[in-house]
């Protein structure tokens, strides 16, 4: 029983890290209908900038502030140079544009800051703590708390403020939003900046785990099944999807893995996602598209 609980809790906590990555996608997809392939590169870009600055001797707080400022500027540049000229193009065009963007961001970031693996120490001890007999990773616990805090802040931002009202308006009906004087370009800048900041947090946590390097941008591939399960348009969906993937992976690895020769973590999430595609194509919390005919 203890082993089951330990596996489950460990999996759930790890799942919140997937959720963090997925939230970045949801934000942009909701507001502009773009599947932003570059989310992984932005995540890498944020983490790499932070590590490079601290390596240069910039104190952590200063490095964070500079990284945030850079990410905001990047979001504004992406909106002005990429999204605005492509307004009203098909989702496929926009997807291809973000695909291109991801290579540019990755290339430029690694060109300037180097491509070797960098250690990132966030000062969180990765010593296990015990809840009764159950061993829990302290790092995972803190990561989960951070993810939770981000979700709370985002839901306050979207539900309680006028920016949130405008943002949901743009997501719901762009032409109506425009007719009310909502500055859509401004909203896109905000959304991309917020997605960049969420990506930065995810990048720092993942980076502390596995080092900051190119492969960090591949956590995108972990977010995809989370999005399919939770739905592309829902932040709670990204959370629940992340928890399901995290718990599912970890339980499957422990209990099914031995029969299949182990190593099922890399693909298990995708099998889970496929099952969801059959039962609930819009995901658990996604908006089902109903066309008026």
């Amino acid at each position, binding site marked *: 029983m203890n082993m089951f609980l330990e596996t489950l809790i460990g999996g759930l906590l790890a799942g919140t890290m997937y959720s963090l990555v997925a939230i970045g996608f949801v934000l942009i997809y909701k507001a502009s209908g773009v599947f932003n392939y570059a989310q992984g590169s932005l995540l890498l870009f944020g983490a790499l900038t932070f590590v490079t600055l601290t390596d240069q001797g910039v104190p952590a707080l200063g490095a964070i502030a500079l990284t945030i400022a850079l990410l905001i500027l990047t979001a504004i540049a992406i909106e002005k140079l990429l999204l605005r000229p492509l307004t009203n193009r098909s989702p496929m065009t926009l997807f291809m544009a973000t695909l291109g963007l991801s290579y540019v961001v990755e290339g430029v970031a690694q060109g300037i800051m180097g491509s070797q693996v960098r250690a990132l120490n966030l000062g969180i001890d990765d010593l296990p703590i015990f809840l009764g007999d159950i061993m829990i990773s302290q790092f995972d616990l803190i990561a989960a708390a951070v993810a939770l805090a981000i979700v709370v802040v985002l839901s306050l*931002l979207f539900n309680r*403020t*006028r*920016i949130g*009202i*405008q943002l*949901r*308006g743009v997501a*719901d*009906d762009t*032409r*109506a*939003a*425009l*007719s*009310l*004087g*909502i*500055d859509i370009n*401004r909203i896109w800048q*905000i959304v991309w900046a917020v997605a960049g900041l969420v990506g930065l947090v995810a990048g720092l946590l993942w980076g502390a785990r596995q080092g900051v390097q190119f492969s960090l941008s591949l956590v995108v591939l972990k977010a995809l099944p989370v999005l399919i399960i939770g739905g592309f348009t829902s932040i709670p969906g990204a959370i629940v999807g992340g928890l399901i993937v995290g718990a599912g992976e970890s339980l499957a690895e422990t209990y099914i893995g031995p029969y299949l020769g182990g190593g099922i973590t890399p693909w298990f999430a995708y099998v889970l996602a496929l099952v969801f595609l059959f039962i609930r194509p819009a995901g658990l919390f996604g908006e089902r598209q109903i066309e*008026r005919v």
Partner: protein
Amino acid sequence: MATSAGPALEVRNVSLSFKGVKAISELSFQVERREICALIGPNGAGKSSLLNILNGVYIPDSGEIVFEGEHFRRMQALEAARRGIGRGFQNNALFSGMSVLDNVIAGLSRKSRVTLFEEAFRLPRALSQENAFRARALDVLKLFDLEKHAETVVGTLPYGVQKKVEIARAIVAKPRLLLLDEPLAGMNANEKQEIAAVIARLNRELDLTIVLIEHDIGIVLKLAHHVVVLDYGRKLADGPPETIRDNPDVIAAYLGAQHAEAAA
């Protein structure tokens, strides 16, 4: 605000085509201040396209728009909203997942005077603006007898009520010109009367200039001060409702067609 005493809106020689197909040809007419101007004409006559030009969704090929004395080769959507051109859409374009109140508050976007920074950190000016917006939105809901639905998710309300919410959202920021695209479509006789009364009252009590598209000729002739008839993107007739009703071209092209349809 408005200093010149000319018409509220002038459409001058406006043409619009989609991939070579003319939607509007050399169209000119004027809308006086505080009048209700109805655009009528068969489907495909270019009525909605014209509204889309007026609030900056479409760019005309040629011609110009004069709004309160200022000339525009094209309206930018944001600019149109900021200058006080409000808009209601065919089939409604509400933010269906949001509450009635939030929809109406969204209508105040162009009135915002606080910076993003103030809003993000909820500084005093942002909070007081938020309270003011909320109060203003609630006032408008009262005007439409919608206050009991304030917290209801708008997508769950009947169509007729949604239409009132949409009009409330369009007028909450006190526009100078209101564009309505078939505000009475898809409604039963009672709902039509109610919405028509709302439109007449907005025009009378808020001195609001209104341009609307409507197919129900009976209501148009009662509600509008001025009717512009379009057919295949051209102006067929333009004048007060009485003269439109008796215009033989209009009867042939539009009223006649309607009657034939009704008889069939």
